[in-house]
């Protein structure tokens, strides 16, 4: 079972993503701050990280890549005016997803695609 860490500021989205990913065959872990993210990654050896920009996604991406980890990272946000999503990709994130354009089912699809690469 693939393991996914969800670090999302919007509690409704946390609830939604948790349900959908569980239903789709993932083992889901929820982190509410950066420290928890790293704790879970280390403990559980998670395969995927789904983190929003607001939760400090950019910094987390940098740190994970610095440590040399290859885990899949998806950054979420809304329209990327400030180009933070672009910066996250440059820092090593695998994809930036606009939450307003992807319903949970589509999100799962995207992540599955990524994992197949």
């Amino acid at each position: 079972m693939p393991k996914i860490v969800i670090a999302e500021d919007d509690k409704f989205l946390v609830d939604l993503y948790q349900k959908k990913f569980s239903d789709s065959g993932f083992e889901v872990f929820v982190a509410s701050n950066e420290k928890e993210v790293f704790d879970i990654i280390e403990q559980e050896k998670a395969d995927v990280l789904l983190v929003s920009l607001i939760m400090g996604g950019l910094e987390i991406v940098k740190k994970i890549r610095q440590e040399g980890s290859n885990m899949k990272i998806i950054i979420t946000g809304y329209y990327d005016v400030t180009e933070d999503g672009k910066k996250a990709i440059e820092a090593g994130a695998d994809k930036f997803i606009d939450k307003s354009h992807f319903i949970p089912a589509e999100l799962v699809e995207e992540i599955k695609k990524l994992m197949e690469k």
Partner: protein
Amino acid sequence: MCSTPPFLLNYLYIPAIATTVLLGFFIFYNNYKKITNRLFFIFSIIIALWMLFNMLNFSSTDFDSVLLYDKLSAIGGFIPAIFFIFVYFFSDDLENKSTISKRNLYLFLLPMLPFIIFSATKYNVQGLTDPPECETIAGPLYWLFAAVIIFYTAGALVIFFKKFKTKNNEAKKQLKIILYGFSFSVTWVLIINVILQIFGFPNASLLAPIGIIWLIVSISYAIVKHQFLNAKLIATQALVVALIILIASQFAFIVTTINKILTAFTLLIAIVFGWMLIRSVKKEVKRKEELEVANKKIDQKNVKLSSANREISKRKEALEVANKEISERKEQLQKMADSLAIANDKLKQLDTAKTEFIGLVNHQLLHAPTPIKDYLAMLLEGSYGEIPENQIKVLKNINAANDRQIHLTEDLMAVTRMESGKMELNFTKEKMEDICQGVYVNVEPTAKEKNLVLEYAKPKTVLPELVLDKSKIFEAIFNFVDNAVKYTPAGKIELKVELASSSNYKPQSLEDQEKKAIAGQVVRVTVSDTGSGISKENIAQLFAKFSRKDAAKLNANGTGLGLYLVKLTIEAHGGRTWAESEGEGKGSQFIIELPVKTPEEILERMADKK
């Protein structure tokens, strides 16, 4: 036989006479044009003659000769008259005035007339006493003539003191000199006649006339000084000549041949050395004069130099002032540059703040609808269990309403970004045919559902590629076609793209009137439908921001921003967009024109990016 005094007396007369003649001659020779000099010459000649006659009078032994010379020495009577005239003209000369008039001259000499007539007659000198004394016996006019003499002398002195008061300092000096000379002469005569007589030297009175030499010398000196004649040179010349004469005069008295030869040698040496001396003095005088001239020139140059120096100082000052100004301006400029830099920084900050604000607003506005959309999606998927049939429609409606909100936010954001210049357009070379094809494929299913015919008329020839943002142009064309499908109840929707040689631009709103049509070739996209058409009033409002009421209906997502966004997008590409309709119920055409030649601004933006 008249008695004669010791020969020594005669010998003293000769140098005196010689000096007088020489001085008179030299003064005359150096500047004969001046009346003063001419007068002085006459003065000295008369005095010389007078002294000569006196000497001959004393030294003659023959009675008749003595009488003759006695009469002749009456010439001395002219001396005061001439002195009188001389003083008058000399003091005027000092002031560089020439008050000489012939009338005045004759007036002065008038009293001399009888003197001239009778001086040589027995009315003046009647005769002589018997030898050996041979003294003068005075005639009736003798004392009158004496009085005339005194009159002129007194007159001269009067003029003298009159002029003495009113002249300048230099003139005063000259007159003083003459006065001294006069005083010395008088003193000499007094001493000779009075004192020496008392001490028992009766013959000493014969020396009295010599005393006039002092007056002569002083006058010469005064003239020389005044006329800037070189005293040194004249003195040297006079001295040398006097010496020569003195030596030569010895020939009259020496007897032996040896003496004569020796005297001749002495004379020769005197002449030779005298001449050399005069020459060297002349040279020295010349050099002195040249030096003075040179000094004067140097002084002039100095004056020029100092005035030039002053000029330079002035210019220096001016330069310093200018320099100060320049550095002040520099400071000003620096301050301005600094303010500009600060303003620039602030602008950058503002810009960043703007971007962040838009992002924040975007985030906040989408924060609510997104989870709603996601929940609805999962509900409708059945993630939370089966939904009763009648509730599905409700959920779908909720979703649609929620999507409207999301679309509004997206449109709003898009408009804001475009208007703020924050919209990142990704310019690439694209084929319009492909984009239209994409739109067609996208909308076709919807058209089919509504039983509408959607046609895409591919161009016969290949269109030139255009530099544009593919996704944005796609959205614009999609907007038109999707609209057409939505608002055409029945019939056909045609999508056409073609190359045209010129623009067909028909501006609709007031502001559009100012816009120029595209120059040159254009690629034109036309979406025509058989729908309800657009009234004239609505056409003008169609592409406006938040277009009102009826016109708003025609906006795809009902946000009132859709067509406005299309317009912004197309115009950002240097193109034009508008709608045409013959009226309500007669269908409508929506047109987009893009220039074939890539606009300058777009090329610049692409260059900037690199």
